[in-house]
C-alpha cells in the first residue's frame, strides 16, 4: 500500500481498506474504537483510563464538547489524573472556552515524567488561541519534540515555509523522523514548500504528546484486523506526536508478534532498547520475549536492568523472584516476593508463590498464614486450597486440613490431589468408607498423572508432598 497516500488521505473518521481482504471491505478503526470504548465503559464506568482514551478519540475527531465531557468524567473519577487535566484544557482551548491567559494548575502533587512537555504544548495552544504565533521552542522541549511541534503549529496557522523549515530540522536530527516524514509525503527534500495536502495532514493530527496512546490503540486495532500498512501508519502518527524511537519499535514489535514474526519481534525490541536504554518497558518486553524464546541470560539481564531503572514495578520483582527460585536461591526469591508485596500488598501471584515456597521450605505455619491472607482478599482456587490442606496436614491439624480439602474438591471436582489427600485424612480419622470414595474419585480423575511421590516428613497424619492439582 502507498503509505504516503494512506497517511495523508485518511479522513478523520479513519476509514481504510482492509489490505488483502475482499474488495470493498472497510474497517473504520476510529468507529470501532468508539464503540469498543463505550461498550467497555458501560460495564466499567469507574475506569478513568477508558474515559481518557475516549476523550482523546473525541479530540482527534474534532468533537470538542464530547472530549471535554470525557476528560471531566476521568477527572471526576481520578482527580489527580494529569493527562486528563491537560486533555481537558486542550478541549476547552480548542472550543474557545478557556481564557488563554489561564496558566495550568494541575491537580495532585506528583508531576508526570512528561509534564514539562505537556505544559509547553499547553502554552502553544494558549498562544494560538490568543492570536499569537505559537513557536513551541521553550527550553523544556527536547530538540526533536520542538521541531515536530513547531512544524505542527506552523501548519495550523498555514505557514507552509515555517512548517517545512521545522520538518527539515526534525529530519536532520532523527533518521526515524526523516523516514516517517518522507514516507508520509510530508517532506520531500526536492520541494521548496510543502503542499496543501501535507499541511492538511499535519493539521489533522492530534498534537498532544499523550495522544500517542490513542494512535497506538488505533494502530493495534488495524493490526488486529490484519491491516499491517494502516497499523504502521498509525504507529507513525504516534511517533509524530511524541517522537520516541523506542516506543515506536515496541509498537511495531507488538504488530510483528501478532503476525507471527518471532525474529522480527526480538530485533525490534532490541532496537527499542538500543534507542532508549532507560526505557524500562522496552527492557521488560525484551526480557520476557528473550526468556520465552529460550535466550534466558539475555532475558534475565533485561529484567535485572528494568528493575534497576524502575524499582517500583512489582511484576518485575515478582518475575525475578521466580527466576531466583529456578536457580535454587530460595531466600533471594522470598525477599523479592516480599518486596513486590511491599509495593503492592494486593499482588496475589507474589503472595501465592511466597506461600507455596514457604511450605516447600517446611515453614508451613508461615505459608498457611500467607494463604489465609489470600482467602481474606477474596481469592481462592482449588490448587491453593489443596496446598493449604497439605500444610495443615504437615502441622498435624487434620480437621483444618479437611475443611480446606473439602472446599477444594467442591471448587474443582476434577482435582485429583484434593481427593487423594481427602482420602488420607478420612482414613486417619477412621472414616474408611469416605476414604474409599475419595480415593475412587482420585483414581477417576488422575489418569495420566505421575505416580505419587513418597510421603514427606513432618506430618502427623500423612504426606505433605504429592501431585499438583
Amino acid at each position: 500500500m502507498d503509505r504516503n497516500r494512506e497517511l495523508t488521505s485518511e479522513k478523520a473518521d479513519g476509514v481504510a481498506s482492509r489490505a488483502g481482504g475482499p474488495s470493498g471491505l472497510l474497517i473504520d478503526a476510529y468507529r470501532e474504537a468508539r464503540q469498543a470504548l463505550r461498550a467497555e465503559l458501560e460495564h466499567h464506568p469507574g475506569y478513568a483510563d477508558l474515559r481518557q482514551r475516549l476523550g482523546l478519540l473525541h479530540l482527534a475527531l474534532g468533537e470538542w464538547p464530547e472530549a471535554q465531557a470525557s476528560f471531566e468524567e476521568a477527572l471526576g473519577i481520578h482527580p489527580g489524573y494529569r493527562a486528563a487535566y491537560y486533555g481537558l484544557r486542550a478541549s476547552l482551548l480548542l472550543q474557545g472556552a478557556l481564557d488563554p491567559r489561564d496558566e495550568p494548575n494541575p491537580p495532585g502533587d506528583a508531576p508526570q515524567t512528561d509534564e514539562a512537555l505537556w505544559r509547553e504544548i499547553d502554552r502553544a495552544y494558549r498562544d494560538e488561541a490568543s492570536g499569537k504565533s505559537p513557536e513551541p521552542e521553550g527550553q523544556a522541549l527536547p530538540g526533536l519534540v520542538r521541531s515536530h511541534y513547531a512544524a505542527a503549529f506552523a501548519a495550523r496557522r498555514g505557514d507552509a515555509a515555517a512548517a517545512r523549515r521545522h520538518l527539515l530540522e526534525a529530519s536532520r536530527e532523527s533518521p526515524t523522523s526523516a523516514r516517517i516524514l518522507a514516507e508520509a509525503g510530508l517532506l520531500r527534500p526536492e520541494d521548496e514548500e510543502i503542499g496543501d495536502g501535507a499541511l492538511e495532514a499535519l493539521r489533522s493530527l492530534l498534537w498532544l504528546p499523550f495522544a500517542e496512546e490513542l494512535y497506538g490503540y488505533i494502530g493495534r486495532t488495524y493490526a488486529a484486523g490484519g491491516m499491517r500498512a494502516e497499523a504502521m501508519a498509525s504507529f507513525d502518527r504516534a511517533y509524530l506526536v511524541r517522537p520516541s524511537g523506542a516506543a515506536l519499535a515496541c509498537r511495531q514489535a507488538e504488530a510483528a508478534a501478532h503476525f507471527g514474526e518471532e525474529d522480527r519481534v526480538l530485533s525490534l525490541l532490541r532496537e527499542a532498547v538500543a534507542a532508549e536504554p532507560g526505557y524500562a518497558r522496552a527492557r521488560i518486553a525484551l526480557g520476557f520475549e528473550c526468556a520465552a524464546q529460550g535466550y534466558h541470560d539475555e532475558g534475565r539481564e533485561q529484567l535485572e536492568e528494568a528493575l534497576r531503572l524502575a524499582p517500583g514495578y512489582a511484576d518485575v520483582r515478582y518475575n525475578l523472584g521466580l527466576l531466583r527460585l529456578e536457580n535454587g536461591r530460595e531466600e533471594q526469591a522470598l525477599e523479592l516476593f516480599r518486596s513486590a508485596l511491599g509495593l503492592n500488598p494486593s499482588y496475589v501471584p507474589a503472595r501465592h508463590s511466597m506461600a507455596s515456597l514457604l511450605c516447600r521450605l517446611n515453614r508451613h505455619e508461615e505459608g498457611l498464614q500467607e494463604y489465609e491472607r489470600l482467602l481474606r482478599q477474596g481469592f481462592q482456587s482449588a490448587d491453593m486450597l489443596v496446598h493449604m490442606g497439605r500444610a495443615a496436614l504437615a502441622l498435624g491439624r487434620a480437621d483444618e486440613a479437611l475443611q480446606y480439602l473439602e472446599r477444594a474438591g467442591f471448587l474443582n471436582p476434577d482435582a485429583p490431589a484434593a481427593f487423594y489427600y481427602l482420602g488420607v485424612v478420612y482414613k486417619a480419622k477412621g472414616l474408611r468408607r469416605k476414604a474409599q470414595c475419595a480415593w475412587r474419585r482420585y483414581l477417576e480423575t488422575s489418569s495420566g498423572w505421575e505416580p505419587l511421590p513418597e510421603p514427606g516428613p513432618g506430618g502427623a497424619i500423612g504426606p505433605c508432598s504429592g501431585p499438583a492439582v
Partner: protein
Amino acid sequence: MAAGDFAISAKVHRLLKRRWLRAEQLQVGVTEGVVLLRGRLGAEAAGVDLDDPAVRGRFLGRLRRDLLSVSGVTEVVLDVGGAEDGGGRWIGTGS
C-alpha cells in the same frame, strides 16, 4: 516443583501480548506450573468485545486452552470475572 515457573511466566506474558490483552491490568503469576491470571480483562485493540458474555466465554475458553498448551503448565486459574465454567475449575470474582 517450581522449576520452569519463570520460563512459563515469560511465555504467558508473550501469549497475552499476542491476544492483545492489557497485561498491565492483569496480575500474572505461576506457582509450580499453575498459571494464575487475576484482574481486569481488557483488550489493547478495539474489535474484541470482551464484555459480551458469549464472546468473553469463547475467548476465555481459547485462552485457557492456549495457556494449558504451554509446556509445564498443569492448571490455569482465571480470576478475571465471568470465567466460571460450571465445573468450578475457574473462579470469577465479578468485574
